[in-house]
Protein backbone atom coordinates (compact mmCIF):
# COMPACT_ATOMS: atom_id res chain seq x y z
CA UNK A 1 0.00 0.00 0.00
CA UNK A 2 2.78 2.29 0.94
CA UNK A 3 4.32 1.43 -2.41
CA UNK A 4 1.20 2.65 -4.25
CA UNK A 5 1.04 5.81 -2.19
CA UNK A 6 4.67 6.38 -2.84
CA UNK A 7 4.21 6.02 -6.58
CA UNK A 8 1.26 8.43 -6.45
CA UNK A 9 3.33 10.87 -4.47
CA UNK A 10 6.09 10.62 -7.05
CA UNK A 11 3.73 10.97 -10.02
CA UNK A 12 3.94 14.23 -11.98
CA UNK A 13 1.43 16.91 -10.95
CA UNK A 14 0.14 16.86 -14.52
CA UNK A 15 -1.39 13.39 -14.02
CA UNK A 16 -3.18 14.60 -10.92
CA UNK A 17 -4.67 17.49 -12.85
CA UNK A 18 -5.85 15.12 -15.59
CA UNK A 19 -7.64 13.11 -12.95
CA UNK A 20 -9.34 16.15 -11.46
CA UNK A 21 -10.44 17.32 -14.90
CA UNK A 22 -11.88 13.91 -15.77
CA UNK A 23 -13.75 13.79 -12.50
CA UNK A 24 -15.22 17.24 -13.10
CA UNK A 25 -16.42 16.19 -16.57
CA UNK A 26 -17.98 13.02 -15.15
CA UNK A 27 -19.87 14.96 -12.50
CA UNK A 28 -21.01 17.53 -15.10
CA UNK A 29 -22.26 14.75 -17.39
CA UNK A 30 -24.11 13.09 -14.52
CA UNK A 31 -26.06 16.29 -13.91
CA UNK A 32 -26.91 16.97 -17.57
CA UNK A 33 -23.95 19.09 -18.53
CA UNK A 34 -23.81 17.53 -21.99
CA UNK A 35 -27.53 17.67 -22.69
CA UNK A 36 -28.43 19.89 -25.68
CA UNK A 37 -29.38 23.43 -24.74
CA UNK A 38 -33.08 23.98 -25.14
CA UNK A 39 -34.34 26.95 -27.12
CA UNK A 40 -35.23 29.78 -24.85
CA UNK A 41 -36.75 32.24 -27.31
CA UNK A 42 -40.34 33.07 -26.37
CA UNK A 43 -43.02 31.74 -28.67
CA UNK A 44 -45.17 34.52 -30.09
CA UNK A 45 -48.55 34.66 -31.75
CA UNK A 46 -49.31 36.48 -34.98
CA UNK A 47 -49.99 40.13 -34.22
CA UNK A 48 -47.97 40.24 -31.00
CA UNK A 49 -45.23 42.84 -30.75
CA UNK A 50 -41.75 41.60 -29.95
CA UNK A 51 -40.06 44.61 -28.39
CA UNK A 52 -36.31 44.92 -28.12
CA UNK A 53 -33.16 46.33 -29.66
CA UNK A 54 -32.50 47.57 -32.20
CA UNK A 55 -36.07 47.12 -33.44
CA UNK A 56 -39.61 46.23 -32.40
CA UNK A 57 -41.28 43.71 -34.68
CA UNK A 58 -44.88 42.58 -35.15
CA UNK A 59 -45.50 39.78 -37.64
CA UNK A 60 -48.96 40.26 -39.10
CA UNK A 61 -49.21 37.63 -41.85
CA UNK A 62 -47.39 35.28 -44.22
CA UNK A 63 -48.61 35.11 -47.80
CA UNK A 64 -47.81 33.58 -51.15
CA UNK A 65 -47.96 36.26 -53.83
CA UNK A 66 -47.27 36.40 -57.55
CA UNK A 67 -44.68 38.66 -59.10
CA UNK A 68 -44.36 42.22 -57.83
CA UNK A 69 -43.25 43.80 -61.09
CA UNK A 70 -42.05 46.34 -61.87
CA UNK A 71 -40.49 47.10 -58.48
CA UNK A 72 -39.20 43.62 -57.72
CA UNK A 73 -38.55 40.84 -60.22
CA UNK A 74 -38.51 37.08 -59.74
CA UNK A 75 -35.51 35.24 -61.10
CA UNK A 76 -37.87 32.74 -62.66
CA UNK A 77 -41.26 34.04 -63.78
CA UNK A 78 -42.85 30.72 -62.87
CA UNK A 79 -41.85 31.10 -59.24
CA UNK A 80 -43.72 33.08 -56.64
CA UNK A 81 -42.91 34.99 -53.48
CA UNK A 82 -43.35 33.91 -49.90
CA UNK A 83 -43.94 37.18 -48.07
CA UNK A 84 -43.64 37.66 -44.32
CA UNK A 85 -45.54 40.86 -43.54
CA UNK A 86 -44.30 42.73 -40.49
CA UNK A 87 -44.56 46.10 -38.81
CA UNK A 88 -41.09 47.27 -37.82
CA UNK A 89 -40.10 50.18 -35.61
CA UNK A 90 -36.42 51.04 -35.19
CA UNK A 91 -35.58 51.56 -31.51
CA UNK A 92 -31.96 52.43 -32.21
CA UNK A 93 -31.05 56.12 -32.30
CA UNK A 94 -30.19 56.16 -35.99
CA UNK A 95 -31.45 54.85 -39.30
CA UNK A 96 -30.60 51.22 -39.91
CA UNK A 97 -29.69 49.46 -43.13
CA UNK A 98 -29.45 45.87 -41.87
CA UNK A 99 -33.11 45.29 -42.56
CA UNK A 100 -32.71 41.78 -43.93
CA UNK A 101 -31.40 40.66 -40.54
CA UNK A 102 -34.70 41.43 -38.79
CA UNK A 103 -36.64 38.30 -39.74
CA UNK A 104 -35.57 34.83 -40.82
CA UNK A 105 -37.85 32.11 -42.15
CA UNK A 106 -36.91 28.53 -41.41
CA UNK A 107 -37.11 25.49 -43.61
CA UNK A 108 -39.00 27.06 -46.50
CA UNK A 109 -39.69 24.29 -48.99
CA UNK A 110 -38.49 25.05 -52.52
CA UNK A 111 -36.78 28.29 -51.55
CA UNK A 112 -34.44 29.76 -54.12
CA UNK A 113 -31.15 30.13 -52.27
CA UNK A 114 -30.09 33.73 -52.50
CA UNK A 115 -26.74 33.23 -50.84
CA UNK A 116 -24.87 30.43 -49.15
CA UNK A 117 -25.58 30.33 -45.48
CA UNK A 118 -25.13 26.63 -44.73
CA UNK A 119 -28.23 24.85 -43.54
CA UNK A 120 -29.37 27.76 -41.40
CA UNK A 121 -32.44 29.92 -41.90
CA UNK A 122 -32.56 31.83 -45.14
CA UNK A 123 -32.23 35.61 -45.24
CA UNK A 124 -34.95 37.37 -47.19
CA UNK A 125 -34.01 38.10 -50.77
CA UNK A 126 -35.83 41.43 -50.80
CA UNK A 127 -37.60 43.71 -48.35
CA UNK A 128 -40.22 46.13 -49.67
CA UNK A 129 -42.59 48.71 -48.21
CA UNK A 130 -46.09 47.25 -48.54
CA UNK A 131 -47.76 50.58 -49.30
CA UNK A 132 -45.85 51.34 -52.50
CA UNK A 133 -43.63 48.31 -53.19
CA UNK A 134 -40.39 50.27 -52.97
CA UNK A 135 -37.28 48.43 -51.89
CA UNK A 136 -36.37 49.15 -48.26
CA UNK A 137 -32.84 50.51 -48.02
CA UNK A 138 -33.19 51.87 -44.51
CA UNK A 139 -35.73 52.25 -41.74
CA UNK A 140 -35.73 55.22 -39.43
CA UNK A 141 -36.07 55.64 -35.64
CA UNK A 142 -39.59 55.88 -34.29
CA UNK A 143 -41.27 55.43 -37.69
CA UNK A 144 -43.28 52.23 -37.73
CA UNK A 145 -43.23 50.88 -41.27
CA UNK A 146 -45.15 47.93 -42.68
CA UNK A 147 -42.77 45.89 -44.79
CA UNK A 148 -42.73 42.55 -46.58
CA UNK A 149 -39.74 40.20 -46.32
CA UNK A 150 -39.66 38.21 -49.57
CA UNK A 151 -38.30 34.78 -50.42
CA UNK A 152 -38.56 33.41 -53.94
CA UNK A 153 -39.91 29.86 -53.96
CA UNK A 154 -40.49 27.24 -56.66
CA UNK A 155 -43.94 26.90 -58.27
CA UNK A 156 -44.71 23.62 -56.53
CA UNK A 157 -43.88 25.03 -53.10
CA UNK A 158 -47.14 25.83 -51.34
CA UNK A 159 -46.48 25.57 -47.60
CA UNK A 160 -49.44 25.85 -45.24
CA UNK A 161 -47.43 27.20 -42.33
CA UNK A 162 -43.95 28.52 -41.77
CA UNK A 163 -41.71 29.09 -38.77
CA UNK A 164 -40.41 32.63 -38.47
CA UNK A 165 -37.64 33.87 -36.22
CA UNK A 166 -37.42 37.47 -35.05
CA UNK A 167 -33.78 38.36 -34.63
CA UNK A 168 -32.10 40.84 -32.31
CA UNK A 169 -28.66 42.34 -31.81
CA UNK A 170 -26.61 43.59 -28.86
CA UNK A 171 -24.88 46.95 -28.68
CA UNK A 172 -21.42 46.28 -27.30
CA UNK A 173 -17.78 47.03 -27.82
CA UNK A 174 -16.32 45.10 -30.72
CA UNK A 175 -13.29 43.06 -29.74
CA UNK A 176 -12.01 43.59 -33.29
CA UNK A 177 -12.32 47.36 -33.69
CA UNK A 178 -12.74 48.56 -30.10
CA UNK A 179 -15.79 50.55 -31.24
CA UNK A 180 -19.34 50.16 -29.99
CA UNK A 181 -21.28 48.17 -32.58
CA UNK A 182 -24.48 46.18 -32.97
CA UNK A 183 -23.32 42.57 -32.88
CA UNK A 184 -24.39 39.06 -31.93
CA UNK A 185 -27.31 38.53 -34.31
CA UNK A 186 -29.45 35.95 -32.52
CA UNK A 187 -33.07 34.76 -32.45
CA UNK A 188 -35.20 36.78 -30.05
CA UNK A 189 -38.59 35.15 -30.58
CA UNK A 190 -40.12 32.48 -32.75
CA UNK A 191 -43.59 31.97 -34.12
CA UNK A 192 -45.36 29.60 -36.44
CA UNK A 193 -47.53 31.43 -38.93
CA UNK A 194 -50.20 30.02 -41.26
CA UNK A 195 -49.53 30.81 -44.91
CA UNK A 196 -52.29 32.52 -46.92
CA UNK A 197 -52.28 31.75 -50.63
CA UNK A 198 -52.85 35.09 -52.39
CA UNK A 199 -51.35 34.21 -55.74
CA UNK A 200 -54.67 34.76 -57.43
CA UNK A 201 -55.30 38.08 -55.75
Amino acid sequence: MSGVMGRIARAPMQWFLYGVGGLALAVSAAFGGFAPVEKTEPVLKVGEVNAGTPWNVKITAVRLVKDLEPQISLKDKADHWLAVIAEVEITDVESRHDIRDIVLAKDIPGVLHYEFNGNGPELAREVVVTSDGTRVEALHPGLTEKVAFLWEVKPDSVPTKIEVEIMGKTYRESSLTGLMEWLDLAPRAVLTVPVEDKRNG
Partner: protein
Amino acid sequence: MADGATTTRPVVRRLGTAALVLAALAIGGVISNFKPSDETQQRPFITRGGPEATVHTRSFDAKVLGVRGGEVIGSAGYVHESKGVWVIVKVQLTANHEPTRVFYAALRDGTERIFEASGRVTQDGLGGRNLQPGIPVDVEIAFEVPTEVPLDLSLRLATDSLDHRMDGMAEIGLPITRDDLTKWKSDKETMRLARPTWAGSSPSASTSPTSTPSPGTSATSTPSSTTTPKGTTSPRVTKSPRVTPTPSVRSSS
Protein backbone atom coordinates in the same frame (compact mmCIF):
# COMPACT_ATOMS: atom_id res chain seq x y z
CA MET B 1 24.24 44.70 13.26
CA ALA B 2 26.00 44.55 9.99
CA ASP B 3 24.41 41.12 9.32
CA GLY B 4 20.96 42.51 10.11
CA ALA B 5 21.41 45.36 7.67
CA THR B 6 22.51 43.07 4.88
CA THR B 7 19.43 40.79 5.38
CA THR B 8 16.85 43.61 5.56
CA ARG B 9 18.11 45.56 2.55
CA PRO B 10 17.06 42.96 -0.08
CA VAL B 11 13.63 42.70 1.55
CA VAL B 12 13.17 46.45 1.50
CA ARG B 13 14.41 46.53 -2.08
CA ARG B 14 11.92 43.87 -3.12
CA LEU B 15 9.07 45.62 -1.32
CA GLY B 16 10.04 48.85 -3.02
CA THR B 17 10.06 47.15 -6.42
CA ALA B 18 6.65 45.64 -5.78
CA ALA B 19 5.30 49.01 -4.68
CA LEU B 20 6.62 50.66 -7.85
CA VAL B 21 5.06 47.95 -10.02
CA LEU B 22 1.72 48.39 -8.26
CA ALA B 23 1.95 52.16 -8.61
CA ALA B 24 2.71 51.83 -12.33
CA LEU B 25 -0.27 49.52 -12.78
CA ALA B 26 -2.53 51.88 -10.85
CA ILE B 27 -1.45 54.90 -12.87
CA GLY B 28 -1.87 52.94 -16.09
CA GLY B 29 -5.36 51.91 -15.02
CA VAL B 30 -6.33 55.49 -14.25
CA ILE B 31 -5.01 56.71 -17.61
CA SER B 32 -6.77 53.87 -19.41
CA ASN B 33 -10.07 54.66 -17.69
CA PHE B 34 -9.94 58.37 -18.31
CA LYS B 35 -8.63 58.46 -21.87
CA PRO B 36 -11.22 59.28 -24.53
CA SER B 37 -13.02 56.29 -26.01
CA ASP B 38 -12.32 55.13 -29.55
CA GLU B 39 -15.62 56.70 -30.64
CA THR B 40 -14.56 60.04 -29.22
CA GLN B 41 -11.11 59.88 -30.74
CA GLN B 42 -12.47 59.03 -34.17
CA ARG B 43 -15.58 61.21 -34.20
CA PRO B 44 -16.12 63.44 -37.24
CA PHE B 45 -15.01 67.06 -37.25
CA ILE B 46 -18.39 68.78 -37.18
CA THR B 47 -18.75 72.38 -38.27
CA ARG B 48 -21.99 73.86 -36.99
CA GLY B 49 -23.99 76.83 -38.15
CA GLY B 50 -27.43 78.35 -38.13
CA PRO B 51 -29.95 78.43 -40.97
CA GLU B 52 -28.41 81.53 -42.52
CA ALA B 53 -24.80 80.46 -42.21
CA THR B 54 -22.53 79.11 -44.86
CA VAL B 55 -20.91 76.18 -43.12
CA HIS B 56 -17.40 75.24 -44.15
CA THR B 57 -16.03 71.70 -44.02
CA ARG B 58 -12.73 70.34 -45.20
CA SER B 59 -13.99 69.53 -48.68
CA PHE B 60 -17.21 71.51 -49.24
CA ASP B 61 -19.32 74.44 -48.10
CA ALA B 62 -23.04 74.15 -47.43
CA LYS B 63 -25.83 76.64 -46.95
CA VAL B 64 -29.49 75.85 -46.33
CA LEU B 65 -31.77 77.71 -48.74
CA GLY B 66 -35.11 76.50 -47.43
CA VAL B 67 -37.30 73.72 -46.13
CA ARG B 68 -40.71 72.39 -47.06
CA GLY B 69 -42.72 69.31 -46.27
CA GLY B 70 -45.81 67.23 -46.79
CA GLU B 71 -47.21 63.75 -46.48
CA VAL B 72 -46.72 62.57 -50.05
CA ILE B 73 -43.80 62.58 -52.48
CA GLY B 74 -43.93 61.53 -56.10
CA SER B 75 -40.84 59.87 -57.54
CA ALA B 76 -40.13 57.73 -60.60
CA GLY B 77 -43.82 57.43 -61.36
CA TYR B 78 -44.83 56.31 -57.89
CA VAL B 79 -46.48 58.07 -55.00
CA HIS B 80 -44.85 57.58 -51.61
CA GLU B 81 -46.90 58.30 -48.54
CA SER B 82 -45.07 58.71 -45.25
CA LYS B 83 -46.17 57.20 -41.95
CA GLY B 84 -44.66 60.35 -40.46
CA VAL B 85 -43.95 63.42 -42.53
CA TRP B 86 -41.64 64.18 -45.44
CA VAL B 87 -39.16 66.99 -44.91
CA ILE B 88 -37.39 68.40 -47.95
CA VAL B 89 -34.32 70.55 -47.40
CA LYS B 90 -32.94 72.71 -50.15
CA VAL B 91 -29.21 73.27 -49.73
CA GLN B 92 -26.47 74.91 -51.72
CA LEU B 93 -23.26 72.89 -51.96
CA THR B 94 -19.89 74.13 -53.17
CA ALA B 95 -16.74 72.02 -53.42
CA ASN B 96 -13.66 73.69 -51.97
CA HIS B 97 -10.51 72.45 -53.65
CA GLU B 98 -11.27 69.46 -55.84
CA PRO B 99 -14.26 67.71 -57.38
CA THR B 100 -16.35 66.34 -54.54
CA ARG B 101 -19.51 64.32 -54.06
CA VAL B 102 -21.72 64.56 -50.99
CA PHE B 103 -23.10 61.10 -50.32
CA TYR B 104 -24.34 61.50 -46.76
CA ALA B 105 -27.26 63.59 -45.58
CA ALA B 106 -29.20 63.14 -42.37
CA LEU B 107 -31.44 65.01 -39.98
CA ARG B 108 -30.49 65.12 -36.30
CA ASP B 109 -33.42 65.60 -33.93
CA GLY B 110 -33.56 67.15 -30.46
CA THR B 111 -32.68 63.85 -28.79
CA GLU B 112 -29.67 63.19 -31.03
CA ARG B 113 -31.47 60.62 -33.16
CA ILE B 114 -30.26 60.45 -36.75
CA PHE B 115 -32.61 60.14 -39.74
CA GLU B 116 -30.74 59.47 -42.96
CA ALA B 117 -31.99 60.68 -46.31
CA SER B 118 -34.76 58.47 -47.59
CA GLY B 119 -33.99 55.63 -49.96
CA ARG B 120 -37.64 55.42 -51.05
CA VAL B 121 -37.30 58.24 -53.54
CA THR B 122 -34.72 59.08 -56.18
CA GLN B 123 -32.26 61.49 -54.58
CA ASP B 124 -30.43 63.15 -57.46
CA GLY B 125 -28.88 65.62 -55.05
CA LEU B 126 -26.89 63.00 -53.18
CA GLY B 127 -23.78 61.40 -54.60
CA GLY B 128 -24.70 61.56 -58.23
CA ARG B 129 -23.66 65.15 -58.77
CA ASN B 130 -19.92 65.77 -58.93
CA LEU B 131 -19.39 69.21 -57.41
CA GLN B 132 -16.68 71.26 -59.12
CA PRO B 133 -14.62 73.65 -56.96
CA GLY B 134 -16.15 77.06 -56.60
CA ILE B 135 -19.33 76.27 -58.52
CA PRO B 136 -22.34 76.23 -56.19
CA VAL B 137 -25.08 73.70 -56.88
CA ASP B 138 -28.57 73.78 -55.36
CA VAL B 139 -29.94 70.38 -54.39
CA GLU B 140 -33.03 69.11 -52.61
CA ILE B 141 -32.86 66.19 -50.20
CA ALA B 142 -35.86 64.32 -48.75
CA PHE B 143 -36.14 62.83 -45.27
CA GLU B 144 -38.86 61.01 -43.35
CA VAL B 145 -39.35 61.78 -39.68
CA PRO B 146 -42.13 61.06 -37.17
CA THR B 147 -44.61 63.91 -36.92
CA GLU B 148 -43.85 64.20 -33.20
CA VAL B 149 -40.07 64.22 -33.71
CA PRO B 150 -38.35 66.18 -30.93
CA LEU B 151 -37.11 69.56 -32.15
CA ASP B 152 -34.74 71.21 -33.05
CA LEU B 153 -33.86 69.56 -36.32
CA SER B 154 -30.45 69.97 -37.93
CA LEU B 155 -29.13 68.91 -41.31
CA ARG B 156 -25.90 66.90 -41.41
CA LEU B 157 -23.84 66.52 -44.56
CA ALA B 158 -20.66 64.57 -45.31
CA THR B 159 -18.88 63.18 -48.32
CA ASP B 160 -18.83 59.50 -47.34
CA SER B 161 -22.14 57.70 -46.91
CA LEU B 162 -20.94 55.26 -44.24
CA ASP B 163 -17.55 56.05 -42.75
CA HIS B 164 -17.48 59.38 -40.93
CA ARG B 165 -14.46 58.71 -38.76
CA MET B 166 -12.36 61.87 -38.50
CA ASP B 167 -14.08 63.22 -41.60
CA GLY B 168 -15.43 66.69 -42.07
CA MET B 169 -19.17 67.08 -41.50
CA ALA B 170 -21.50 70.08 -41.73
CA GLU B 171 -24.37 70.53 -39.29
CA ILE B 172 -26.88 73.27 -40.01
CA GLY B 173 -29.85 74.16 -37.82
CA LEU B 174 -33.17 74.07 -39.67
CA PRO B 175 -36.00 76.58 -39.18
CA ILE B 176 -38.70 73.97 -38.61
CA THR B 177 -41.36 74.29 -35.91
CA ARG B 178 -43.98 71.94 -34.49
CA ASP B 179 -46.64 73.89 -36.40
CA ASP B 180 -44.76 73.28 -39.64
CA LEU B 181 -44.67 69.53 -39.04
CA THR B 182 -48.36 69.40 -38.11
CA LYS B 183 -49.29 71.42 -41.17
CA TRP B 184 -47.13 69.30 -43.46
CA LYS B 185 -48.63 66.10 -42.10
CA SER B 186 -52.09 67.17 -43.20
CA ASP B 187 -50.90 68.30 -46.62
CA LYS B 188 -51.80 65.56 -49.13
CA GLU B 189 -50.55 67.34 -52.22
CA THR B 190 -47.84 65.36 -53.99
CA MET B 191 -44.42 67.00 -53.81
CA ARG B 192 -41.52 66.38 -56.18
CA LEU B 193 -37.84 66.83 -55.61
CA ALA B 194 -36.14 69.42 -57.79
CA ARG B 195 -33.20 68.24 -59.85
CA PRO B 196 -29.81 69.64 -58.85
CA THR B 197 -29.12 72.94 -60.58
CA TRP B 198 -26.13 75.20 -60.90
CA ALA B 199 -26.93 78.03 -58.51
CA GLY B 200 -26.34 80.67 -61.14
CA SER B 201 -28.92 79.15 -63.43
CA SER B 202 -31.42 78.11 -60.81
CA PRO B 203 -34.83 79.62 -61.42
CA SER B 204 -35.49 79.29 -57.72
CA ALA B 205 -32.32 81.03 -56.67
CA SER B 206 -34.33 84.08 -55.65
CA THR B 207 -36.73 82.07 -53.56
CA SER B 208 -34.36 81.54 -50.70
CA PRO B 209 -36.31 81.48 -47.42
CA THR B 210 -33.63 83.34 -45.63
CA SER B 211 -32.40 86.80 -46.21
CA THR B 212 -28.84 87.45 -47.29
CA PRO B 213 -26.62 86.22 -44.49
CA SER B 214 -25.33 89.06 -42.44
CA PRO B 215 -21.59 89.40 -41.88
CA GLY B 216 -20.35 87.09 -39.23
CA THR B 217 -22.89 84.38 -39.76
CA SER B 218 -20.31 82.10 -41.24
CA ALA B 219 -19.87 79.13 -38.96
CA THR B 220 -16.68 78.31 -37.19
CA SER B 221 -15.17 74.88 -37.28
CA THR B 222 -15.47 73.13 -33.94
CA PRO B 223 -14.09 69.67 -34.37
CA SER B 224 -14.45 68.75 -30.76
CA SER B 225 -17.09 71.20 -29.72
CA THR B 226 -20.36 70.09 -28.22
CA THR B 227 -22.05 73.42 -28.66
CA THR B 228 -24.80 73.75 -31.17
CA PRO B 229 -25.16 77.30 -32.29
CA LYS B 230 -28.58 77.73 -33.73
CA GLY B 231 -30.00 80.51 -35.74
CA THR B 232 -31.94 82.69 -33.38
CA THR B 233 -33.26 85.52 -35.44
CA SER B 234 -33.33 84.07 -38.87
CA PRO B 235 -36.51 84.36 -40.86
CA ARG B 236 -38.44 81.16 -40.52
CA VAL B 237 -40.00 79.16 -43.31
CA THR B 238 -43.60 78.70 -42.37
CA LYS B 239 -44.98 77.37 -45.61
CA SER B 240 -43.45 76.64 -48.91
CA PRO B 241 -45.62 76.41 -51.95
CA ARG B 242 -45.97 73.02 -53.58
CA VAL B 243 -44.47 73.16 -56.97
CA THR B 244 -44.79 70.53 -59.58
CA PRO B 245 -42.75 69.68 -61.42
CA THR B 246 -40.17 72.31 -60.44
CA PRO B 247 -40.42 72.95 -56.74
CA SER B 248 -39.20 76.11 -55.22
CA VAL B 249 -38.87 77.30 -51.69
CA ARG B 250 -40.12 80.59 -50.35
CA SER B 251 -40.07 82.43 -47.14
CA SER B 252 -43.14 83.94 -45.66
CA SER B 253 -41.27 86.42 -43.57
